[in-house]
């Protein structure tokens, strides 16, 4: 399969070609690529793409995947509706 047909991040529709271009342009950390391309910023919170992204960085930079710092996981763990938060929030008022 071509790099441009291989999806790395499904939520943000990012292909292997997109990611490789960014790594070649000098964005060689997970945090930088996430911010510039939204890779891993979708509803799945990077659960599917994160490992794939680390692998691409390792392949192109020649680094050991274990040495590539993982992305910072941010809350909430699972998407939560604002309306649900409101129901919970009323207790405090």
């Amino acid at each position, binding site marked *: 399969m071509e790099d441009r047909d291989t999806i790395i991040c499904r939520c943000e529709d990012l292909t292997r070609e997109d990611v490789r271009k960014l790594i070649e342009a000098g964005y060689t950390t997970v945090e930088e690529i996430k911010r510039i391309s939204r890779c891993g910023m979708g509803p799945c919170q990077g659960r599917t793409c994160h490992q794939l992204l680390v692998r691409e960085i390792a392949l192109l930079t020649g680094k050991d995947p274990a040495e590539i710092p993982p992305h910072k996981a941010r809350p*909430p763990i699972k998407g939560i509706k604002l309306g649900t938060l409101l129901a919970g929030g009323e207790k405090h*008022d």
Partner: protein
Amino acid sequence: MTKMSADVVIVGGGIIGCATAYYLAKQGVTDVVVVERDFLASGSTGRCGAGVRQQWGLKMNILLAKESIKAFETLNEELDTGLDIEFKQQGYLMLAYTEKMVEQYKKNVALQQSLDVPARLISPAEAREIVPYLNTDGLLAATFCPTDGHINPFTTTNSYAIAARRLGVRIMTGTEVTGIEVKDGRVVAVETSAGKIHTNAVLNASGGYSREVAAMAGVDLPTYPERHQILVTEPVAPIQGPMVISLHHGFYCQQTPHGSFIMGFGDPNELKEHVVSSTWHFMEEMAAKVLPVLPPLAQLRVVRQWAGLYNMSPDAQPILGEAPACRGFYNAVGFSGHGFMLGPVTGMLMAELISGKEPHIDISPLSLERFEKGELLREPSVV
């Protein structure tokens, strides 16, 4: 280690540092080094709401923001990096819920119009035409300026950096400034984790760390960090044009061109320390503030929350200029939560100042000396 030197060393690779580096190089000062501890836009810039507005109550802020927005309008063409700053120029809608606020907004709009900013006072019904699902209960009036908007802070900062590099600027990421050497009241060198850089001009563009960096040069700044939290939802089809902002509730809420909604509010009890963790309480209170005003957003799922630092100054206005106590030490700090939008104009002004030119807008009221003289500025319209 080879001996390093530069005409100008910039501490911090956020919007302020990268924009100033670019405008310096554009003016011909290309021997510039930007030193960034982490990666570009890793500080407040990459954590901010990235709203840009000209609807201020202070003439200085209106002039600065207007100039910045003019620059943002053509920045993609000017920097020509292939990155898109994603300027969504669909206005800011500012809601007024008290008579006092209406009076203030009337004054603000008159001042804005006198400076050629196309803001106007509108009725609740007109506000609903702009945001059809706005609940107008209790709303007395609003102001709207169609040329305000929202921008992608990552691509903007990186665009400035790429354009600056193309002109010869060196950018050292993953490098920390650890000391500043001063001799006879003048900067002579910057110490970094990658060695010493000899220089006679340093720009402090370190955002939330401005006080610590200034202290390295023996300069005492009255700035302090304050945590601000923010969240983002899943993306949906475009339904909201402008940033909606209610100073009464203290919140702002915008739909990005990508479809997600970002929102935050000012919490007077927030931590005034270097912490960027986020709290569950913030999400609940955010929902409680925004949903009565924008009810359909209840259906949106929050996918992420985070926090960043405002770099506060005593009058919530930036501090721009050379420090009187140390020649060659320049500050562009204390943006107090509105520094992203001031990035381009600050970059231009600091570049003029550092290269010995007269700044094209008189920024002497923003000097550090104002605190000593008691000449504080008062901006009535901050979140």
